[in-house]
């Protein structure tokens, strides 16, 4: 039997939809399990395992994680670390991007490639050298140490991204501004920076999640529990002999909330950013 084009299209659509639905289910299953776990008591969990519906829904775990688990402190630390890192990275890399995009000077390309290369180095191989360096500099076990490391590590990608965005802004704008009497910094600050807002928003979203969700640098560079961000802090909820899974999972859910909010509010920029520069 011959199928019409319309029928073929329908079948193909249905197949794709089923496949996607399956992926989504598999993807969301652990999240669903985590949600179930966070709403039940430890006893319920011990008796019935992970995948049963809770006997009784309770919000106590969140409270425990927040106060006794010190999530309040850890989340605050996360913000103390993430926000300056984010602002610092965007501020510095937008200047780098502007200079690389708009000025002709010897070594421009080499410098650009250096930032790209920096982006490509796997950070794992730098764990020990950076740990030693932070000891030498006396910034080990401090907010500033971690902030500076984040700032430096994210600059490669951010500079690369912003340079490629700013290079698409016509040179005539800076020339017009120069004739209008603007200094070079003003051209950057009043013309190119506002025009790069979409790129900055997309980058800000991405970077917020990356820095906020960092675990390994916090683990390596911070010793004091009082300073740890939420990712590393959650790990301290795991006891040596017994782990209160419901509290831990409730804490993990609390820890993801900020990134979820950032995504919801900035997602349109985020999606724009992913396709940025791919077409006019």
């Amino acid at each position, binding site marked *: 039997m011959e199928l019409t084009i319309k029928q073929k299209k329908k079948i193909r659509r249905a197949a794709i939809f089923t496949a996607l639905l399956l992926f989504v289910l598999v993807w969301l299953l652990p999240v669903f399990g985590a949600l179930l776990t966070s709403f039940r008591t430890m006893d319920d969990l011990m008796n019935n395992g992970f995948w049963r519906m809770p006997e009784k829904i309770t919000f106590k775990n969140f409270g425990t994680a927040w106060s006794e688990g010190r999530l309040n402190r850890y989340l605050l630390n996360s913000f103390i670390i993430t926000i300056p890192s984010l602002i610092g990275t965007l501020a510095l890399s937008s200047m780098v991007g502007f200079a690389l995009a708009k000025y002709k000077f010897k070594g421009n390309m080499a410098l650009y490639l250096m930032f790209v290369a920096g982006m490509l180095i796997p950070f794992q191989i730098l764990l020990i050298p950076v740990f030693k360096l932070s000891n030498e500099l006396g910034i080990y076990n401090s907010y500033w140490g971690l902030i500076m490391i984040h700032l430096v590590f994210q600059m490669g990608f951010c500079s690369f991204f912003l340079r490629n965005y700013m290079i698409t802004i016509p040179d005539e704008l800076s*020339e017009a501004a120069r004739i209008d009497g603007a200094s070079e910094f003003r051209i950057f600050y009043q013309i190119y920076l506002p025009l790069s807002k979409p790129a900055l928003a997309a980058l800000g979203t991405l970077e917020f999640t990356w820095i906020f969700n960092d675990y390994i640098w916090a683990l390596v560079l911070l010793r004091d529990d009082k300073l740890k961000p939420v990712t590393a802090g959650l790990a301290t909820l795991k006891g040596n002999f017994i782990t209160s899974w419901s509290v831990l999972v409730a804490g993990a859910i609390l820890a993801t909330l900020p990134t979820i909010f950032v995504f919801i509010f900035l997602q349109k920029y985020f999606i724009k950013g992913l396709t940025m520069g791919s077409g006019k």
Partner: protein
Amino acid sequence: MANVTLKNVTKKFGDFVAVDSQNLEIIDKEFLVLVGPSGCGKSTTLRMVAGLEEITEGTIEIGDKVVNDVPPKDRDIAMVFQNYALYPHMNVYDNMAFGLKLRKFPKEEIERRVNDAADILGIQPLLDRKPKQLSGGQRQRVALGRAIVREPKVFLMDEPLSNLDAKLRVQMRTELSKLHDRLQTTVIYVTHDQTEAMTMGDRIVVLRDGVIQQVADPLSLYNEPKNVFVAGFIGSPAMNFLDAKIVQEGDEYYIDGHGTFKIKIPEDKIEKYSVKDYVDKEVIFGVRPEDVVDANITHDFDVTDYNSFVAEVEVVEPMGSEIYLYLAEKDHQMIARVEAESKAQVGDNITLGIDLRKIHIFDAETEEVIF
């Protein structure tokens, strides 16, 4: 007050010479047009005056001051760009006020100037809009407005009309001319369009490969071109060029188109120019399409054997008010611009007269004009 003087100005990009030792004096309040094909160095020249390109050699003076090392903002110039270069994130008012704010003008003064400029240009209702909400013509006006509010000594315009559609371009052309009359400021205007150059310029500079070919007012440029390039560049349709030779027969001199035509050189020209030196030498014969006439129509000169030739009509282009005839005579191609009454049809062999008062000949080697 604001003469602009270029002395031996040269610009090199690496080994490439974009502008080759130009000397040019732009007089105060003059509308000077730099014209030439793309890559002739006209924009580079303008950008050097603006201070956007460094000068490799020579000096540029604005007023009496050498400005080689003066940054653009201190040169007292304003520039209008081809793509307008409006700040996309600012509204029209802020676009126009930006330069004044940076110069720390008092608020009332800024407001007065922006409003005045907006009135002149008819963009008063658009002041709150962003550039992307404007049409091409409106953006063009804002770009002009941004230059006007500064009240500079010199306006620099880099192909400001080339992004507009044909109709709007003609309209803006006259508006720009009017604006110049009104503001009485020196304007240096770059274009590749010879019509713009002819209609707007007080004087025109024709450039080719970075070298100035000729500086003259529009009519002189049209009637007395200095070389083949200028003759061919100015005027549309372009001047006809035919390879020929000067021959002497007794006391008379002829332009001999290698057997296809033979035209007598008027006596006054022989006396006045060095025609005798070119006897038996190769020359380029040049005549504008409107100086080639249909012999069947009466003109203010007689068509004789010595100022006419026969050619086949290949294409007829009726323009309404006139007709363009594309002619072929052996391997020579020509265009004649004849009156609308002409009855010439494709395939006809018709007699064409040449207005001897308007002919030119050029040295075939140097391409310089003989007369």
